[in-house]
């Protein structure tokens, strides 16, 4: 849609600005969420810019790579990073129009995230350490359940707004004055739980822990160090930011600029930043309220998403 608008060079510029905002702000959001979590636990916590310092430190450090590892272990951080960057190019922040003249489909997004996860799991298995194996088997269990739930929730959304193209969904959502049907409510509920699961938040995974028995994501990247660890951490932050942006743009898109005038776009950016920080604070607050669930109870929560998506579908067809 609206491919003629993207012929302007300004739209390409806007696309690059969006890309830069995602890349630069992703570690900051992680830092803010860590800080909020620390405050809710009555700790002072590290500075919100600590994640940048961590990344810089990791980039400067030497790497240790196991002799037993194959090329998969060495290349998968770059594959994960590039797939995440491709996603970051197409996520609408300022305006719901395709900046590079290409539409971006939800299924492509899920496919790129699936590619990231596939290579992360392969890298975890490749070095054949015990913890890698544990983390990978857990990740496989949750992701194989999460994906159908995510599909159900997103298809509810796609059927409601009449397209699987992200820009169409976001612009239709932004035009409506309120949520146009109750099925959006069900997919909001399901998508929120999925965002918590995909970004490794507390009922599902606890990234802050270093107890081997409870970690999922950390166990897979345990063997990485130096630059490759920095790349993986950065792509994890970007993935978190992208999912939260999608949540905001799909379900609370009001305030999004609908034309290319700079004033409305800067205003929209301000509203967007407020929304995303509020969402981050909300997620960290929920994280402080719940404990880590037992691994075999996690499917219950994911089935809750599926039931929610199913009910959304039912609401669409009655």
């Amino acid at each position, binding site marked *: 849609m609206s491919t003629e608008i993207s012929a302007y060079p300004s739209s390409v510029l806007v696309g690059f600005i969006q890309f830069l905002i995602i890349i630069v702000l992703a570690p900051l959001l992680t830092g803010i969420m860590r800080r909020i979590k620390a405050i809710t636990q009555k700790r002072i916590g590290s500075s919100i810019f600590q994640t940048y310092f961590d990344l810089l430190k990791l980039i400067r450090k030497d790497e240790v790579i196991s002799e037993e590892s194959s090329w998969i272990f060495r290349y998968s951080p770059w594959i994960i990073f590039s797939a995440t960057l491709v996603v970051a190019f197409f996520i609408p922040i300022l305006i719901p129009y395709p900046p590079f003249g290409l539409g971006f489909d939800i299924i492509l997004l899920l496919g790129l995230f699936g590619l990231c996860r596939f290579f992360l799991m392969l890298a975890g298995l490749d070095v054949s350490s015990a913890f890698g194996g544990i983390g990978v088997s857990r990740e496989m269990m949750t992701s194989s359940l999460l994906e159908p739930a995510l599909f159900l929730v997103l298809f509810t959304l796609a059927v409601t707004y009449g397209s699987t193209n992200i820009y169409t969904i976001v612009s239709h959502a932004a035009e409506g004055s309120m949520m146009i049907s109750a099925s959006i409510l069900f997919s909001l509920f399901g998508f929120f739980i999925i965002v918590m699961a995909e970004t490794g938040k507390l009922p599902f995974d606890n990234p802050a822990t270093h107890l081997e028995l409870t970690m999922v994501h950390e166990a897979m990247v345990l063997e990485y160090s130096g630059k490759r660890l920095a790349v993986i951490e950065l792509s994890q932050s970007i993935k978190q930011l992208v999912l939260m942006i999608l949540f905001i743009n799909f379900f609370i898109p009001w305030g999004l600029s609908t034309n290319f005038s700079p004033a409305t776009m800067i205003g929209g950016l301000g509203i967007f930043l407020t929304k995303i920080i509020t969402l981050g604070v909300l997620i960290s607050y929920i994280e402080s309220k719940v404990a880590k669930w037992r691994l075999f109870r996690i499917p219950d929560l994911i089935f809750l998403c599926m039931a929610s998506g199913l009910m959304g579908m*039912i609401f669409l067809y*009655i």
Partner: protein
Amino acid sequence: MVYNNLLIFLSGTLLISTIVLVIKREFSGWIQAYRYQTIVLTIITVVIGYITNNWEIYVAATITFSLKALIVPRLLIKVTENISYDFKNETKPYLSIRTLLVGSAILVALSYFSTQQIRLGDDVIAMSFLPVSISLLLIGLLVMVGRKVTLNQIVGLLILENGLFLFVLSLTHGISLIIEIGIFIDILVGIVISSILIHRIGYTFDDINDVNQSHENLEYTEELD
């Protein structure tokens, strides 16, 4: 109608709060979820009262909130304080939580499908809340059948009871206040009786535990001899 969107929205919220109630496994968790569900039901009652412009429904909403969101949960928590955790936590239900969730989604579909056949005219309230109330009834029955622990079977009963309340409200737009209050007193008496029973159950089970322990101690001392 102006209210159509709001009503469908509220029925969606009520269904979400119901399925959140279904996944809770332990006693304190579902009490909390039941409280939220009742608050949503109260909001629905107030909205129906506003649309039909009937002051009796506001009274019913106040009683619903104070009875089901404040008194009943506190009573149940207080009564079950001394019961050991094993009798409150659902470890091996007859139907697993996942089956319950998928089953309740199917029941929601079923109730919407079956109420589509009824001609309700242009009654917006009945059209949006009748299917929800029937699905609440069916989900309550399913939960009651699926759980093994006696305490947790009350969840099903309470969901069913909320469903009945909504059913009556959506079809009649507020029955006479006297009947409403009578029903509420029935619920209160029922909960009081069941809590006395729960108390007795807890007492007996604690006794059984004690007997077992003293038995073990006895065997131990015999071995020592």
